[in-house]
């Protein structure tokens, strides 16, 4: 309890619950480098066992991606130009609006990792958290997508699910009626921490990274320890081009976007 000098102006409506505004894990996304190639979306889906939902549901706004590439257009036709691509994922808010509204504590804050977590087996599917999320990054399992027939091959009337062979054993497969969202690849965090602990050292910067950052061909995504002032991510987070989304909501997001503009 040595460094409890919290800047009260930066702590959200819930009050200063000994929660530090800076957080432990953080991410920096450089929009000037992002090419919008969607490799992070695919990598995230593979890492976190996110099923695809087919055209109809996807077009109706039911994709399960934990990260999405947003793009917008500026100006009137024909002088149209696209704005920089904007990867949007859970901002791991320090003061998350999704947490207090869950009646069953399925959306909780991890004190150890200072992350915003979703406990799948507690969730009863009220979807209040998703309504209250200003970033709209929580996704809901509208059906049992992972065992829908469109994931299967039909061998003489018997359904075989080849895609189930690439499931990540470290991550749950969610059933219908459950909210889910980006976890900052907490399974990788735990793995790295366990390894560091067994070797009697602290987790080093750059020792591991999230699936999206790993897959990014232009290194637009940087992930690491925010509370380590030497780490790349904490240096980038203080870059003069950095900004955070919807800062006026006072959600204390842990993701900094870089954009020269």
């Amino acid at each position, binding site marked *: 309890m040595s460094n409890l000098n919290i800047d009260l102006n930066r702590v959200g409506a819930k009050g200063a619950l000994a929660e530090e505004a800076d957080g432990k894990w953080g991410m920096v996304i450089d929009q000037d480098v992002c090419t919008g190639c969607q490799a992070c979306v695919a990598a995230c889906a593979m890492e976190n066992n996110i099923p695809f939902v087919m055209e109809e549901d996807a077009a109706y706004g039911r994709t399960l991606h934990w990260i999405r590439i947003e793009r917008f257009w500026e100006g009137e036709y024909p002088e149209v130009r696209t704005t920089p691509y904007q990867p949007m994922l859970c901002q791991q808010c320090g003061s998350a609006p999704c947490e*207090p509204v869950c009646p069953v504590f399925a959306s909780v804050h991890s004190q150890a990792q200072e992350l915003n977590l979703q406990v799948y087996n507690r969730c009863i599917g009220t979807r209040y958290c998703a309504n209250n999320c200003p970033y709209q990054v929580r996704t809901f399992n509208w059906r049992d997508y992972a065992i829908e027939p469109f994931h299967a091959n039909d061998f003489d009337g018997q359904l075989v699910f080849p895609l189930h062979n690439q499931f990540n054993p470290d991550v749950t497969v969610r059933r219908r009626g459950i909210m889910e969202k980006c976890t900052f690849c907490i399974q990788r965090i735990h793995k790295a921490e366990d390894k560091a602990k067994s070797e009697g050292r602290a987790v080093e910067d750059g020792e591991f990274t999230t699936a999206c950052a790993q897959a990014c061909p232009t290194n637009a995504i940087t992930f690491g320890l925010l509370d380590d002032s030497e780490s790349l991510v904490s240096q980038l987070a203080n870059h003069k081009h950095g900004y955070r989304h919807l800062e006026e909501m006072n959600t204390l997001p842990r993701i900094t976007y870089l954009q020269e503009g």
Partner: protein
Amino acid sequence: MAVTSGYLGSEKANAEHHEEEHDPRESLMYDPRPRGEMNAMVMESMHTTSWKFWVVLGVLAFLVATCFFYAWGYMIAEGLGVAGVNRPAYWGVFLVNTVFWIGISHAGTFISAILRVMKAEFRRPFTRAAELMTTFGLIQAGASIFMHLGRVWLAYWMFPIPNERQLWPNFHSPLMWDLLAITTYVLGSTMYLFLPLIPDLAMARDRSTGWRKTFYRILALGFRGTEGEWRHLTTAMNIFAFAIIPVMFSVHTIVSWDFAMASRPGWSSTVFGPYFVLGALHSGMGAVAIVLVIMRATMKHMDYFIRKEHFDALGKLMMIVSFTYAYFFFNDYIVQWYGGDKWTDTLLHWLEEGPMAWMFYQMIAFNIVIPFLTLWNKRVRTTPWLLALIGGLINVGMYWERYIIVPVMLSINRMPFTWRLYEPGIEIYLTIGTFAMFLLFYMIASRLIPLIPVWEVQEGQMVHSLRKVGKAHVPTVSEFE
């Protein structure tokens, strides 16, 4: 002197004056009948059923079986994908139905508790009909909440019961308050429905045979109508009448907090509490008008108990509620517009000229314009079918109001990339199912319990008298308690 006595004291002159103003056929209080006869009329209205009743009952039962139970079971098995909810409209028609049915249920409490406490005489014949709407409406509201859950089979995790997970529910969540408030309201209003029913059940017990006698004997709890029993019953009813009023106000306020506590454009409005309560009364009054007209048209002897004076009084009440509703409506929208928040501004402009603008304008027309333009007219108020039509339009308008607040306002948020319209899927069937179930319960209840509280009507007629205030004769009720 003869001239002045003719003006001031003459019985004849007053009697004529009275005849002019009050046609006995218009006022239940001026048309008393012996108690036994009224009892027999109510009993007969319960027993008389035509083949049409059974046909309608059969259709409703079929709708409940298919549109409610089958559709819900299918949705539980398939997941919410069969419904129309999507991102960003995570909440859809199920929550609209919940708010709507809780709104309907408010009329019952308002009419029976508040008007009872205020000693408004016109309430007497239709308190029961309104209270039944409370209970049956709340059943539909509860069912709609459970329909909306993604994993409804785990809904008991919201209850504060000891469990192996060592986890207490989150009392920060408005949904938790909702659960507690609605449960309290269901229990309270059911007891409040039951208490004034006891003397009528005892009456029915003494006048029926066979299984009905057993049914009424169990429910009447051995009520014989002694002095002491009446004293206890009146005390209990008084306690409940006063206690249920704050519950009623709190329930819809808490339901509104589901929205007002969320930080979304359009939702985060501090006036939502009273606005929702008034909205609930608005739709509830309209629904009472519809139910009374249907009761009067279809059940035997009801034209004796439900008269023009009641429709007149109900029409006035609807108009006053409509005025107050308009105040809160414009308060909500104008203050939000004045706030000038970027996203709220976007939302309001989208509402007034976007694809759902027709719904927005219909809401204003049905909830405010039509009641304002029609209900001031006594002839409109005393025409049952016209009053039922206006009540129906108000209910459509109020349904649109909730529809705009839930899925339409959810379509616009702070992340323009996710903006998307909501289209109801299986919700349409489940909505039909809840309406059918409400009507089915109501029709079954109309055969089983006296829809007219005979003892209350009798009491009103007994203590009713004319009092002279200046030159006018005012019907009053003497205090007796």
